């Protein structure tokens, strides 16, 4: 478990690829620098999509929490 407090949460559970990543990008687009967005996704592709995009865009993937039926990604906007 992480004690990171997200500023906003995007619940993309149930969305098909690339929905979760696009939902995250949409939220980051409107966020302020330093904001932490939590993405909830049950799509396994997010495990590679989200780290790759975060690195490409210069945002920091702070943590990934793994649950039985989904993962939670904490991304801080640069």
């Amino acid at each position: 478990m992480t004690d990171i407090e997200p500023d906003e949460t995007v619940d993309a559970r149930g969305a098909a690829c690339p929905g979760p990543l696009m939902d995250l990008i949409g939220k980051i687009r409107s966020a302020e620098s330093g904001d932490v967005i939590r993405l909830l996704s049950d799509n396994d592709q997010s495990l590679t999509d989200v780290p790759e995009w975060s690195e490409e865009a210069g945002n920091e993937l702070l943590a990934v929490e793994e649950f039985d039926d989904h993962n939670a990604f904490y991304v801080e906007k640069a």
Partner: protein
Amino acid sequence: MTERVVILGGGTGGTVLANDLADRLEPELDAGDVRVTLVNDDPDHVYKPVWLYVPFGQREPDDGRRSLDTLVDDAIDLRIDHVSDIDTESQQLESMEGSDVIEYDHLVVATGSTLEPDRIPGLAGGGHDYYSESGATDLRDELLSFTEGELVLSVIGTPHMCPAAPLEFVFMADDWLRERGLREDVDITYTYPIQRVHGNPHIAEWARPIMEERDIAVETFFNAESVDPDAETITSMEGTELDYDLLVTIPPHRGVDLIEEAGLGDDGWVDVDKHTLEAEAAQNVYALGDTADTGVPNAGSVAHYQASVVGQRLASEIRGRPATATYDGKTLCFIETGMDAASFVEFDYESPPSPAPPSEKLHWSKLAYNESYWLTARGLL
């Protein structure tokens, strides 16, 4: 007592459904036991796939317009009106004029997609599109006289209408410029928001080698942040800046505001059960086509198949039987790979697409279907 079905939106989904119900519920409609009302804010039905061909001078926007009253069965009440509010508690719609309300027992929301270029600073002034009639004709005015420079196609947001159309546009532009002996003077660049060239990995895997073979440059993980119309540059959130002489974009999309205001879903898309297409936040409400947030492409074929499912379910409910029809994610799509060749894909929730080898026959099949689309709108094909 008459059971009232109201369909909001006269695009492909709404129109096919209205005609489906006119056929399926003919006895009940004749007896006055059921009334079906189709509400649209435009007296015309618009077939958007025509717009892809407009910039190349091959079609006119009017080719994609026909009056709804010539397409919709006479048993359907056609109401040209602008709905300003959906109240799912009292089961009624308010129109802009506010003179009366439209009450329903069953509502189907099929309001489709709208464009939001203003979400990206500079886009409205610097970018062209072929996702609207005016966009397609403005782009035609530029493209027909474009003979050299940087042609950039940028997919700005997903979901967007017809996910294949950005690939089609660059494949067609490449071929069209080659045929005219101009390709060596024009660089084509295609940008996409994620790490591949299409949302669906199977279509992306098929398209990428064709782009390499055709010398179409690719920028992935490119999410446009701003456009500078004076400097003729487009910059991404990821920090990449591209110069352009002609910028063609797929603008950000969203549904209509009514949906969010009614609490049916975010960004104008209705949260639905992806098999039954029933709204999750309200009783007696269905959504279909682009409006239904199922994760499948925003495509006419999807709206068409979903209309049949909703038609069957509504007929069952009205007749007091259990509704068993479900949508399986079925999607069909032709993909132009040039000016005289096309591929074809068919897929659903369980089966991924496998693009067919491009051929002239498939290209003509696409054009033939576009011509016969009006039979689909009438519920005949």
